[in-house]
């Protein structure tokens, strides 16, 4: 049953990947600016430029270029960087590891705060905790993360000197330094998520707590916190799973900004550099992997949903 569900999903993913990559591929080539010019400099002669374009395949129609790229990509060859000559797949996967650590921390952060705020505000409605939760719910949604990032860097790195302003240490290299380097970026990345999860979980908890089976739970002799823990939370988390999936994609996109502010060598930063340098093969690789990530997350979201809710059957 589950295996068939998996096969079916993979089957759906393929056309989606084709369409998104084609669109992205075309858009990238429409970016004004010429990689040949960027490589050779302003003084290059017209012949040299044309020769290089032909060598890079840039003189062919977009659809041909796409076909060429696609057939190579299927074989695992995403090409090489126009500038460093690095294999795109190597560069992208190294960066992906970094970004994944940052985003995972941001996700954990979002859920930790979201759960804490939502539950406390539901346990004591209209208490000061409830007001704080609601206040952060609005604040986290409203504050732009790059602004928050700059403020936090000024406060914690420049003034207090507690945390590094830039750079990144992998968790496998040095866990403590990892925490230090990832704290501010993931906080900035996760503040929006925390606010979203707080708001949604709060309202879905309130709704769930009014249902009949919660009354049944009380009638068994459970106290409020037991009712929430044993019967309320799992039911209330169902709609949040979808939000979390969307958030993940959202955060991947936001790394473009956050990784630039904190100089973290991740996918976001790579995307920005590739755009600035017109490093098309690299940019295509980055986008492909991001799209893949989002499709995988969607799939995982559906699986989690099915695991949480026995009424859903994998078909």
């Amino acid at each position, binding site marked *: 049953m589950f295996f068939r569900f998996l096969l079916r999903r993979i089957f759906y993913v393929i056309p989606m990947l084709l369409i998104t990559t084609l669109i992205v591929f075309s858009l990238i080539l429409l970016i004004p600016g010429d990689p040949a010019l960027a490589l050779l400099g302003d003084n290059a002669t017209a012949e040299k430029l044309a020769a290089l374009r032909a060598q890079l395949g840039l003189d062919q129609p977009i659809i041909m270029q796409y076909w060429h790229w696609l057939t190579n990509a299927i074989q695992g060859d995403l090409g090489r960087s126009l500038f460093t000559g690095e294999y795109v797949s190597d560069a992208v996967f190294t960066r992906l590891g970094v970004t994944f650590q940052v985003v995972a921390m941001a996700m954990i952060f979002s859920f930790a705060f979201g759960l804490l705020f939502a539950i406390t505000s539901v346990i004591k409605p209209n208490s000061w905790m409830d007001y704080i939760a609601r206040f952060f719910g609005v604040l986290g949604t409203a504050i732009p993360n790059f602004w928050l990032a700059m403020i936090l860097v000024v406060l914690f790195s420049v003034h207090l000197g507690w945390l590094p302003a830039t750079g990144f240490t992998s968790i496998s290299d040095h866990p403590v330094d990892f925490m230090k380097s990832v704290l501010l970026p993931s906080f900035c990345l996760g503040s929006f998520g925390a606010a979203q999860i707080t708001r949604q979980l709060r309202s879905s908890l309130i709704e769930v707590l009014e*249902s*009949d*089976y919660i*009354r*049944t*739970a*009380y*009638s*068994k*002799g*459970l*106290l409020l916190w*037991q009712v929430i823990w*044993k*019967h309320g939370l*799992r*039911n209330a988390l169902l709609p949040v799973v979808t939000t979390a999936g969307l958030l993940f994609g959202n955060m991947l996109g936001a790394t473009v900004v956050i990784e630039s502010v904190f100089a973290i060598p991740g996918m976001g930063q790579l995307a920005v550099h590739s755009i600035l340098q017109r490093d098309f093969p690299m940019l295509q690789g980055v986008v492909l992997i991001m799209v893949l990530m989002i499709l995988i997350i969607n799939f995982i979201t559906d699986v989690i949903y099915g695991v*949480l*809710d*026995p*009424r859903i059957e994998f078909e």
Partner: protein
Amino acid sequence: MSQADEILNVLSLRASFPTYQGKVKAVNNINFSINKGEIVALVGESGSGKSVTALSIMGLNAPTIKYEKNSLISYKGQDLLTMKKKKLKKIRGNEISMIFQDPLSSLNPLQPIGRQIAEPIQLHQGKSFFSAKERVVQLLRMVGIPAPEKRLQDYPHQLSGGMRQRVMIAMALACNPTLLIADEPTTALDVTIQAQILNVLRELQKDTGISILLITHDLGVVAEMADRVLVMYSGEIVEEGDVFTIFKSPRHPYTQGLLNSVPKLKGAGEDRLKAIPGVVPNPLNLPEGCNFYSRCSYSSEKCSAAAPPITDSAQNQRFACWHPLEKKVNQFV
């Protein structure tokens, strides 16, 4: 009945909900008691305050509810209305438990039924799920679920409506309570299933000696199940008596009206079905005198001026009416 047999005593219970439109008077000064091993039916049209009464006993009404000062619900000599939460929690689901109208929405959709039935046992007897399992299987067998060992992992949506209500009953009986409150337990079920569920309840009552407060609007259910009947109208108990007396010789016109609106097999030709005319008074704005005044064919000026008090509870039938129907003696209908 001696005092010792009384397990629950409701005394001048008045409950209301403040709303933006005003005070919704849901329960207006009711008195009744439930004895050990007795099935007491609480009947009345919808909106008459039956559920609010039941939930007052459980302490599960909406938090906006206000109980009037002298209200008292005495269980084994302790007032449930003013009891501390910690103490009340030890009674709920352990000594007094409740089943509801809609078993599907009353069960947690995300938890296997075995877990849900075991929960009160784990909670009140400090057992692990594993050691409670045996009892769960026994309970499922008691309520007539076939192959109970195989049902533990089932989710509510995988069971039929009747099976779900059996699960609810099993859950309510898990800790051998002294009182079971059943709020319209068969209303949401098919007629044939209704009969099965009532059977289960009756058999369990015989086997365990539990007391049952059975809430219903169906006099057929009352006739089949109850020892004693409380007739509720607009938040008041307008008549009370043992089931034979009430069915044979109702004294309150409202009770008579309810009885007349039940289809009978015998004599259906002469006695055509008569619905009670009019509607229940608005609980936001109850009349000065008798609440039934506007719908009653026996009413007089006296009825609109003052509410009739309920007669002495020492008799086996009591009623609140200025113009009670005549008592029928030894007459077979």
